[in-house]
């Protein structure tokens, strides 16, 4: 009969017994990052190395040629990549800020306000967690068209603002704030806005960070709004520009380096943001359960 040998979950230090987990996890972790590592390596390869046969995984003589030519060479439509980059930056900035404010307000109201539709709305939102925008691409296009958002920046921004996962995560997080705290502030004469801005917002920062990451990913990686709602080339996003690079990769080896450089530019901001907010994300996830 085995007996309890102390809790093995979440150990505070390394012990030999954990070796079996490392033996499995470390190689797996390496395999998982290989494709990402490959982007780095590929984007730093000079032209002659891209042509090599057999292909090499690691770059031998790293150069910034690809990144340089990506940023200076204009594509066939004579629009420089920096224009797409600028579009993406602006759109992402607005999506992140606006969806954060909207999600936080909604999460707060759903958690702390008493109103009749509260339960229903939260349940609708929970069902909407499984909403897959691509499934209703067509009616979404029709809505965007009717609102006159075709070929406008708003056409990129507005469709991304409703983020059910964001509202859900924030609501679960606000749930932990004791009601007494809010009531006490109200008794002291704090208005709704003050309560929200001075009490709720600071407490829910980890959840806000997490939602910021999700919104960032949704906006930064988004190609759909460019493909569907924008016919004007100057309004499209960097992620879309990438797809035009990769679609020619098959028969164009020189383009490979540029495409890889673009992929790198796509990936690095995601990574940096996540690394910085990693502990807050885990803090949020602890309250992410659907009850």
């Amino acid at each position, binding site marked *: 009969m085995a007996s309890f040998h102390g809790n093995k979950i979440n150990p505070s230090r390394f012990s030999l017994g954990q070796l079996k987990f490392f033996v499995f996890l470390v190689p797996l972790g390496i395999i998982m990052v290989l494709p990402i590592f490959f982007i780095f390596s590929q984007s730093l390869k000079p032209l002659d190395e891209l042509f090599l046969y057999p*292909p090499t995984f690691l770059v031998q003589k790293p150069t910034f040629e690809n990144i340089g030519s990506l940023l200076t060479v204009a594509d066939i439509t004579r629009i420089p990549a920096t224009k797409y980059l600028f579009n993406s930056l602006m759109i992402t900035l607005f999506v992140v800020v606006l969806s954060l404010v909207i999600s936080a307000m909604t999460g707060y109201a759903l958690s702390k306000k008493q109103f009749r539709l509260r339960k229903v709305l939260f349940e609708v939102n929970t069902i909407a967690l499984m909403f897959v925008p691509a*499934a*209703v691409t067509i009616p979404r296009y029709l809505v965007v068209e009717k609102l006159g958002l075709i070929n406008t920046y708003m056409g990129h921004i507005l469709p991304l603002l409703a983020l059910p996962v964001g509202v859900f995560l924030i609501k679960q997080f606000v749930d932990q704030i004791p009601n007494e705290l809010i009531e006490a502030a109200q008794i002291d004469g704090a208005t709704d806005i003050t309560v929200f801005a001075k009490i709720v917002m600071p407490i829910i920062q980890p959840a806000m960070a997490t939602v910021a990451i999700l919104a960032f990913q949704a906006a930064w990686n988004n190609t759909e709004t460019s493909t569907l709602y924008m016919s004007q080339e100057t309004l499209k996003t960097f992620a879309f520009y990438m797809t035009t690079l990769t679609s020619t*990769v098959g028969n164009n080896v020189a383009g490979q380096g540029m495409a890889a450089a673009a992929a790198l530019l796509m990936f690095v901001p995601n990574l940096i943001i996540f690394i910085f907010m990693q502990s807050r994300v885990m803090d949020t996830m602890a309250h*992410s359960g659907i009850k």
Partner: protein
Amino acid sequence: MKSTSELAASKAIYTAEGQPSKQKWHQKRWVRNEWSAYLFLSPYLIMFTMFIIIPVIAAIGLSFTYFNTVQAPEFIGLQNYVNLLTQDSEFMMYVLPNTIKFALLVGPGGYILSFWLAWLLAQIPRKSRTLIALALYSPSLTAAVAMSVVWLIVFSGDSTGYLNAFLINWGFINEPIQWTQSPHYLMPIMMTVTLWNSMGVGFLAMLAGILNVNPEMYEAGYIDGIRNRLQEVWYITIPSMKPQMLFGAVMAVVGTFQAGEIGVQLSGANPTPQYAGQLLINHIADYGFIRYDMGYASAVSVVLLIVIYGFSKLSWRLFGEKD
């Protein structure tokens, strides 16, 4: 414990003169709250209605029409659904079986993988855990478009493709294989890529869930006769983190159906070669944006929404807290 006299006193306040005024006060507060609640909710409600509710309702509505985007939609009843079930041979022969195969392997597969990896990660100390978790999560940080660069080069059809070069080098094959253009290999490649990508938000939620299980639960479990770690996972870990399991499951369902575009990205064509990687999502785009039969495409959308809903309901059945 309140003494009986105190209790009676407080009751008296409620039943006698206390209640009317208190009720009035409550009512006023209620109304004020109701107003301010909607004030806080309104931006989200507007966006949610415009870009989620209306599209879903419109899809249902359009699915009963013939709509070619030029003329106004024409009501044709259930014709689209009848056609879907009886006329659309590609749907029955390829799209539906492919979707089921893809969803069943990638959905639960990715989900179980996520849980298992999260559990393994919970067994090691914090610093190394954070590092490896980042490695496992990083694929889902990448955009599908960005990754298609990698996959297109790895699976490139000529001998400069990494997989071909590797296999030729080691003598497994003599001729390069057209990986992404081949009906045999496209589906397995799609699944591998999606599984690689499946350690996302749900994975993080489950990791946090496992780490937050009250340690005393395990102690109690061992006293009650749990004998190995498998039993420990089954009888203690999973039941104590059901909410996270459910969140993870819902995220897995969404991820699976959102990943559907990968086949078109890899093969560079819609429909995919011989419909080998054609999923419901691609079928919608095929009919909607290539053949401009929006009514029919909407009917397929409705089917997709029902399938997604069904999968999520199933997750609810498994992990939802009954009350």
